[in-house]
């Protein structure tokens, strides 16, 4: 298995999850088992007592739900603590209606899903042969997710919002990758992380833009100050993009179907009520800024409609249960995004209402799919199911309720979700209304197909799973479905919460929201009737339409954004490999990589600054003749060092260059330097010869007979000449005319030397004025000795 295949999905999700997925699960299942055996942990058992971790998680979530509800009923409240005063960051949380709505969803649905997970996860782990202790990380990340959602729902500071935003992405990453040995989990987790993580950076950029413009990250303060303008539009668009990506909207939607590699409770929670909801939450939270720009609103409307239609169409064609639901989620969040895009009170409050109504129904449906799959021994293809109502009537009934809620049938909360959409759309003319109405038509068709093919008809294969499902696998579905029904009949709580949440999104303006059944011929009712008729018709005749939808799905997958994602990942890896082939691997070019850019930069420096009059030849007269001669000698020796074939001759030439320089120092009035230079050159010669004596004879001369390839025959001297030229320029340039001929420290040193009890000023500097340098220099010598010892002792031992 190459990495490419693991990183990059190679096929359309349907195909991959079927073939590649099962193939790898075979192999990795074995690895997991052997790993479990090696660790001494037996595989999880599907039966036994209810897992305490799940119980604990569910209890905590339920308590959090109760606390949130209590706090909300007591009028909300806020926490405001300093966090990072340097950037004006505050830990500012407020439980307003918008926050309460999402926090209640996250904790409430969380509690129900955790209850469901207890039994489900044991079944899942035992199916894979993994030990029960693997579930600990599952609950840890689920709880982290819950906490992050509550934080996200209540945060009032953009940077704080970003922190929780990314925390949800982290939790989601590890939950999708829970079956880390499966190829699908591998690529699905990476995809979700890349898509939501990278787009999260857009939220950060937008926030920083607002910070730079308004001097604060505090959302209420920014909203109070915000004035429409291009900067605000860009910031709002970036934030909206982050929200759209998280809500799995076209063109970022593809991460969601791939995230179905996660265990079903994760989907029931994250991919219906929480993770995807975070995107809409962000839009609702920053809506006062977003609605300043028509462009952003129109963009959201278009994206919402596109997601609604594309998601609905593809959902109609999917075979796997969770794939149907995933595309349905794309479509349903399209409703909400479209509502926010339509704008106004209806849009803002409607968006909030739809989130809740959808979350209840979709969460239940995901759990239905999980229950059915578990009861069928892992079967998750619609074509292989059927007639399941006989074996699991409660699930079938609850599922029917949830499906009805999703399809917007009367008596469920879902009915109002459609009605609100129609109402908002009607204000924008017939075209928008028609487009919007197409969504529910498709919903009715795909969800009807989903429910019907699971529960109706005759069983295609005998169920191989457990004969009866545990109560904790069924009850959570029933609870959510019933809540959907209750809110369909008793509309007041959800209505007021959504209205107030909408008002938060509108920056405090009241958002009227009237949710009630009207038995009259008002437009929304008529549209709803039309939708039911068309939807029913579509459901009845969908086999005939299927090729059209399938063609669309095929085209969308083949040429859609997922394809772009996959191919850009592949291209990036390919580009990297191509680039790596040019990576320098030998010393010569590593040296050239320093010298050549240095030469370029020096040239640039010349072009950028005036050079006229900056260079001086310096005084030179007849008395300097000896100096000029030794300098010439040194230069000649250095040039000669390039020629010799034998290493020993090279060392001799090198020494003569050094001695010539020592003579130069002596003539320049620097006897101390000259003395040390002579000594150091002597030592060098000694060391070179000593090291050469370590090498077998002939090696030094033989290597030199190697011929130089023609490509290098000119390049090396050229680089050398260029570096010589830039050295000339730099040294001449910096050693020419010091502009301020003010006091120099050297004069003070000469004055003060007697005070340091020394006649030789240089020695005074070395041992007194700059003794710290001398000490550090001596340290270099000691370290060199240590390094030499280390290198040679290993040379000896090797």
């Amino acid at each position, binding site marked *: 298995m190459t*990495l490419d295949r693991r990183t990059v999905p190679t096929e359309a999700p349907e195909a991959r999850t079927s073939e590649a997925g099962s193939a790898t699960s075979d192999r990795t299942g074995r690895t997991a088992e052997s790993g479990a055996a090696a660790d001494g942990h037996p595989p999880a058992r599907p039966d036994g007592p209810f897992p305490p971790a799940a119980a604990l998680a569910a209890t905590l979530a339920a308590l959090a739900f109760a606390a949130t509800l209590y706090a909300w009923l007591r009028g909300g409240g806020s926490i405001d603590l300093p966090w*990072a005063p340097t*950037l004006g960051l505050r830990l500012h949380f407020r439980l307003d209606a918008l926050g309460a709505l999402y926090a209640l969803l996250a904790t409430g649905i969380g509690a129900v899903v955790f209850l469901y997970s207890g039994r489900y996860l044991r079944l899942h782990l035992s199916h894979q042969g993994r030990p029960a202790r693997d579930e600990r990380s599952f609950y840890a990340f689920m709880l982290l997710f819950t906490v992050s959602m509550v934080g996200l729902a209540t945060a009032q500071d953009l940077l704080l919002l970003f*922190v929780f935003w*990314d925390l949800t992405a982290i939790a989601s990453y590890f939950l999708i990758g829970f079956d880390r040995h499966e190829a699908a989990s591998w690529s699905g987790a990476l995809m979700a992380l890349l898509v939501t993580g990278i787009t999260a950076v857009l939220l950060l950029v937008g926030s920083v833009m607002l910070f730079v413009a308004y001097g604060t990250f505090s959302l209420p303060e920014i909203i109070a100050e915000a004035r429409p303008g291009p900067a605000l539009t860009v910031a709002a668009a970036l934030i909206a993009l982050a929200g759209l990506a998280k809500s799995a909207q076209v063109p970022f939607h593809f991460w969601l179907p791939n995230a179905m590699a996660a265990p079903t409770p994760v989907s029931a929670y994250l991919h219906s009520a929480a993770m995807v909801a975070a995107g809409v939450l962000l839009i609702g939270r920053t809506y006062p800024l977003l609605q300043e720009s028509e462009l952003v609103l129109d963009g959201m409307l278009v994206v919402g409609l596109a997601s609604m239609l594309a998601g609905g169409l593809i959902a109609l064609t999917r075979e796997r249960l969770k794939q149907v639901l995933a595309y349905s989620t794309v479509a349903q969040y399209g409703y909400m995004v479209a509502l926010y895009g339509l704008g106004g009170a209806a849009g803002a409050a409607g968006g909030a209402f739809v989130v809740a109504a959808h979350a209840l129904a979709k969460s239940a449906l995901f759990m239905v799919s999980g229950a059915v799959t578990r009861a069928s021994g892992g079967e998750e293809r619609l074509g292989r199911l059927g007639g399941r109502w006989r074996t699991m009537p409660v699930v079938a009934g609850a599922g029917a309720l949830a499906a009805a809620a999703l399809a917007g049938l009367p008596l469920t909360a879902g009915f109002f979700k459609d009605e609100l959409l129609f109402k908002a759309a009607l204000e924008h003319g017939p075209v928008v209304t028609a487009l919007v109405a197409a969504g529910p038509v498709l919903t009715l068709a795909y969800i009807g197909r989903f429910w019907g093919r699971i529960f109706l008809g005759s069983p295609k294969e005998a169920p191989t799973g457990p004969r009866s499902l545990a109560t904790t696998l069924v009850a959570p579905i029933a609870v959510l479905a019933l809540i959907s029904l209750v809110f369909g009949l008793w509309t007041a709580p959800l209505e007021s919460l959504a209205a107030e949440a909408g008002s938060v999104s509108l920056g405090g303006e009241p958002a009227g929201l009237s949710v009630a059944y009207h038995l009259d011929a008002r437009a929304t009712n008529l549209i709803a009737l039309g939708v039911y008729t068309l939807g029913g018709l579509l459901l009845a005749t969908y086999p005939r339409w299927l090729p059209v939808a399938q063609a669309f799905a095929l085209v969308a997958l083949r040429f859609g954004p997922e394809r772009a994602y996959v191919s850009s990942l592949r291209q990036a*890896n390919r580009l990297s490999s191509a680039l790596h082939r040019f990576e320098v691997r030998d010393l010569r070019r590593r040296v050239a990589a320093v010298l050549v850019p240095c030469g370029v930069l020096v040239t640039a420096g010349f072009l950028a600054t005036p050079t006229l009059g900056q260079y001086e030849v310096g005084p030179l007269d007849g008395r300097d003749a000896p100096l000029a001669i030794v300098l010439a000698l040194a230069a000649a020796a250095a040039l000669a060092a390039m020629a010799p074939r034998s290493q020993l001759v090279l060392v001799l030439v090198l020494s003569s260059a050094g001695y010539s320089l020592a003579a130069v120092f002596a003539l320049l009035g620097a006897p101390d330097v000259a003395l040390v230079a002579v000594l150091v050159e002597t030592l060098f010669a000694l060391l070179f010869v000593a090291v050469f004596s370590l090498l077998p004879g002939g090696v030094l001369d033989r290597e030199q007979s190697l011929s130089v390839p023609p490509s290098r025959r000119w390049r090396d001297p050229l680089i050398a000449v260029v570096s010589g030229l830039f050295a000339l320029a*730099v040294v001449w340039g*910096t050693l020419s005319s010091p502009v301020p001929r003010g006091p120099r420290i050297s004069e003070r040193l000469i004055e003060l030397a007697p005070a340091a009890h020394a006649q030789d000023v240089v020695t005074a500097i070395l041992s007194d004025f700059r003794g710290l340098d001398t000490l*550090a220099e001596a340290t270099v010598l000691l370290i060199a000795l240590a390094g030499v010892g280390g290198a040679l002792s290993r040379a000896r031992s090797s």
Partner: protein
Amino acid sequence: MTDLLFLPLLVPWLAAVGLVLLDGRRPGVAWLAVGALAAHLAALAVLAARVFERGPEQAVTGEWPAGVGIVVRADALGMVFALLSSAVILAALVHETLAGVGGRRFPALVVFMAAGLTGLFLARDVFNFYVFFEVAMISAYALSTYGGEARQAGAAFVFAVVNLLGSFLFLIAVAGIYHQTGTLDMDGVTTGLAAAGPNAAILIAVLVLVAFSVKLGLFPFHPWLPAVYIGARPAVAAILAGALANIGSYGVLRFGADLLPAQLRAGSIVLVVLGSASIVYGAVQAIGRRDSAEVLAYSAIGQVGYVLVAVGVGGAVGLGAAVLYALVNGLNKALLFLSIDLRGWLVGAAFAVGAFSVVGVPPAAGFLGKVVMFRAGVETGSVALVVLIFLGGALSFLYMFQLYQTDFWAGAREVGRSAPRTRVVVLVLAVLVLALGAWPEPLLAVSRDAAEALGPEGP
């Protein structure tokens, strides 16, 4: 009160000299070195606390006039980098001690490097800076042979040759600085260079930039870096990437913003271009690599690009961003490199923290680096810069998590088990990275103070 000023330098220096004679493979000796470094870090922390509270502390050797004697000064910028470097070195030494030191002179060399770096960050004298720079570098050359494999000797040779070239260029710059200003004391140098000829000053600036770019491993000066980091043992790689590379960041800040502000402004576009090229080049190279050390080496090339870009942006925001990014990057690299030869799910968690920090996902501290970088980019009003930082981040997502999944999910690191105690340091670093992200005030305040310590470019 000059005694405390020298104490952080004196402790490791003396300790290292003593340690040279002892066999570092004996656990007692290694723990002795750890103790010395811990004492050093404590002294440094006390000094730093005083500096942050009351402002810079300064002394001149021998009570001579400044310039005659060597000026030693602890200011916020130096303290920040000294603390980071020493903490990383200590972490690496503890890590290696727990795993078992394999070289006779390893502890001594590590402590020598701490001494050299401290001296360098305290130096307020151009030549003194160079001397301590060489103390740190020669320790690094010797350290990079640690492990004793053939490839390490080859890498050390490459490392030494290329960096020596950089050092000599820097030395030529020092000669130029002295000739142009008549002094070596940095305060005098600053005023002297402000009055120097523009051509001479820009040439000095170029040499300094090249010297520090080589240390940082910036594209296109980088080719020595992968060979050294890949060949080195994890502890050594952590020290090189987390501590030694700070010389480059600090040097660019100190010499650029403090001594050559006019040249920095004039050449800011060069810095931004070099930094951007590094960001993209490092990230693209990292994507296709499969070995942890290779990915991290190229990631290091990319990450230092951000520091350079931030310095190029300049101003209080840019310089503060550069300091903060260098700090966070040092910690990230120490954490990630030290984890290379470890296994187990806890190490996986620690590695994930490091990976999230590199890509800038909160609550890992790295997100602060991204925040300040974007702030610097937005304030310049350059769309291209913001897009570049975004792109660099996006690519780092890809390479970090490809690596994480290969190593910890696909089981590339499952073979063999590491002793639990060897994981301690990595876990501590991971917690530190998380804590600094969750409570960002210290990092933000410290990097702001450090940027303010820089001369005329500061606010």
